[in-house]
């Protein structure tokens, strides 16, 4: 056992004395979370709206106030004609414009269907349709609330209920994904070069001549990264809660357990790559191309797995991140318990034991 701790101590020295790598490891999760949270977000936040109010009645002003009141939209321009609206679009100042016709209030009072026009800058179609949808919802809700009694006649709104993430907040879904990605990077990439590095530097030669147990050498390599990963995990969780208001609806402990299992699996995978790779470059390529890319594309982090072709869906079964992201979403966003994640958890544990076993078996006690 003393031997094992000597190995662990040595591994900690290696990591903490490599200042540049250490900095990357500690900053990477923060940067990734911020990038995913702010830049790749599909949320609507303070979108500028121009309004052409041709009705100019309490009803129409009420609608404008209602739009302006939330955090999604901000009415910046009140215009007199639709010609002015066109100018603003050409300058690119606004993304969406609302034209309220002169007979808006009359129609509403008469219990007839009211008509408003939404003009959207569709040069970014994705963004346009999201903004459009948000604004439609607000307008629909307004006309319903104003004359509740006449609800069936006044305005037609398709009522959509967004489960678990009512505002369709992308932050909710990206957090488990980013945790999956960052931990995969640290655990797998970092450990995948660790054993092969000792072979390349020649230190393995001195290590092998000593009566050291392969399982100690292998296990000790995972311990420091395990510690660093848990630190990173906490950083990501805190950032998600405080910067993006992501709730953890389920048990925090359960989420922690799921994450630790995932970390362990990723470490074992990294070690396995390290025992089969001949050089550090090969290990890096396997981890980056063979693992990072599929993780980003296929694990459900960016694109829903259900809409992939069957072959790719099959591939995604092989990715540890896929199972972790599923667990994360079930616990964090749906708030469900272990009964709903036991399958994913068992698959991850199985993968970990498989990789560890293969690594110990494949560890070469001689030079090749």
């Amino acid at each position, binding site marked *: 056992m*003393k*031997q094992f*701790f*000597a190995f662990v*101590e*040595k591994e900690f*020295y*290696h990591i903490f*004395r*490599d200042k540049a790598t250490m900095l990357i490891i500690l900053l990477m999760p923060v940067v990734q979370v911020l990038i995913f949270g702010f830049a790749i977000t599909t949320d609507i936040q303070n979108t500028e709206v121009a309004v052409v109010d041709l009705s100019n009645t309490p009803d129409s002003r009420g609608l404008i106030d209602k739009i302006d009141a939330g955090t999604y939209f901000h009415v910046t321009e009140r215009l007199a004609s639709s010609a002015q609206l066109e100018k603003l679009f050409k300058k690119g100042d606004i993304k969406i414009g609302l034209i309220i016709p002169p007979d808006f209030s009359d129609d509403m009072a008469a219990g007839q269907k009211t008509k408003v026009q939404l003009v959207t800058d569709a040069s970014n179609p994705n963004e346009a349709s999201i903004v459009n949808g948000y604004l439609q919802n607000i307008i629909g809700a307004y006309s319903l609330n104003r004359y509740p009694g006449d609800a069936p006649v006044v305005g037609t709104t398709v009522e959509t209920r967004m489960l678990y993430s009512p505002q369709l907040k992308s932050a909710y879904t990206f957090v488990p994904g980013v945790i999956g990605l960052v931990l995969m990077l640290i655990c797998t990439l970092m450990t995948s070069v660790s054993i092969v590095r000792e072979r390349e*530097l*020649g*230190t*393995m*030669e*001195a*290590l*092998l*001549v*000593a*009566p*050291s147990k392969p399982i100690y050498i292998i296990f000790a390599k995972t311990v420091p990264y395990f510690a660093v990963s848990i630190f990173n995990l906490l950083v990501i969780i805190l950032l998600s809660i405080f910067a993006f208001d992501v709730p953890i609806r389920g048990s925090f402990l359960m989420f922690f357990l799921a994450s630790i299992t995932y970390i362990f699996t990723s470490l074992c995978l990294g070690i396995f790559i390290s025992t089969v790779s001949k050089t550090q470059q090969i290990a890096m390529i396997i981890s980056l191309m063979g693992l990072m890319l599929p993780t980003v594309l296929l694990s459900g982090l960016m694109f829903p797995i259900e809409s992939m072709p069957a072959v790719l869906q099959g591939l995604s079964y092989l990715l540890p991140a896929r199972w972790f992201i599923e667990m994360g979403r079930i616990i964090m966003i749906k708030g469900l318990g272990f009964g709903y994640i036991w399958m994913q958890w068992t698959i991850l544990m199985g993968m970990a034991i498989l990789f560890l076993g293969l690594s110990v078996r494949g560890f070469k*006690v*001689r*030079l090749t």
Partner: protein
Amino acid sequence: METSVVASLVSKSFGHGNHRVQALDGVSLRIGRGELFGIIGPDGSGKTTLFRILASLMLPDKGRAYIEDFDTVSQYRDIRKIIGYMPGRFSLYQDLSVEENLKFFATLFGSDIEKSYPNIRPIYRYLEPFKTRKAGKLSGGMKQKLALCCALIHNPKVLLLDEPTTGVDPVSRLEFWEMLDLLKAQGITVIASTPYMNEAMRCQRLCFLQNGKVVGCDTPENIRKAFPFKVFSVKSADKFRLLGDLRNFPACHACYPFGAYHHFYYKEGTIRMEELESYLASLQHEEIKIKESEPTIEDCFMELMSQGGEHGN
């Protein structure tokens, strides 16, 4: 003398097909306990491969090797407990300090620095002033002393040193071999390879390795005695032309440059010094100086190598 290390018809080759290289070809050795045994040979002669096979780090294709009666293949675990091995390339952790490296390797062998201190004291006293320095920042000589310390920390019975003094300054080299003498006196079997002939002379027995074959193995004294030629050391103003002219002389067996002089080998009684002198004078050589010398170990080495080469062809 009791036997400590045995190699019997050990062969090893690398690569495939046309690129196949025979690193070792039927090497047999028997080394006594407490012997200081030297292995010399040109680069690529198979020295490192032999060390790795003895250290149980490589499997021989054919033949067997034993260390203290343990088989290097099937009993590698037992062997790794009783040998100290210093690879040719520095293989300690550069980002760990002197003390941390020692402590780590001591723990691997189930020991600690205090317990092992008597084993390493004569060497460690050189290192102690630098014990907090990172191994990567040590000088070449210090690195080798540290590596020797780490190889000695568990009081091994057999020490395998693959070119321990290559790239080390002459003073440190001398110190290093004085340490090996000390270890030998303690009854440790020491096997070392070296490219320096003055170091080879300090070994009790020497083995010449060439193209993976043992071309000679004996005490330095016997090797010199067995040298079948007499040697003239010859010098003149034009060293380069002199070498060619000496080689063209009919009685010349071989001639090699050795520092300021060329060593001219001849069969005893075939020529006299005056004949050679007048031959060189007739070729307009100036400042000619000829003296009779005792064959050095290097002369023997050159001769064995040229013979080995002939056998090889």
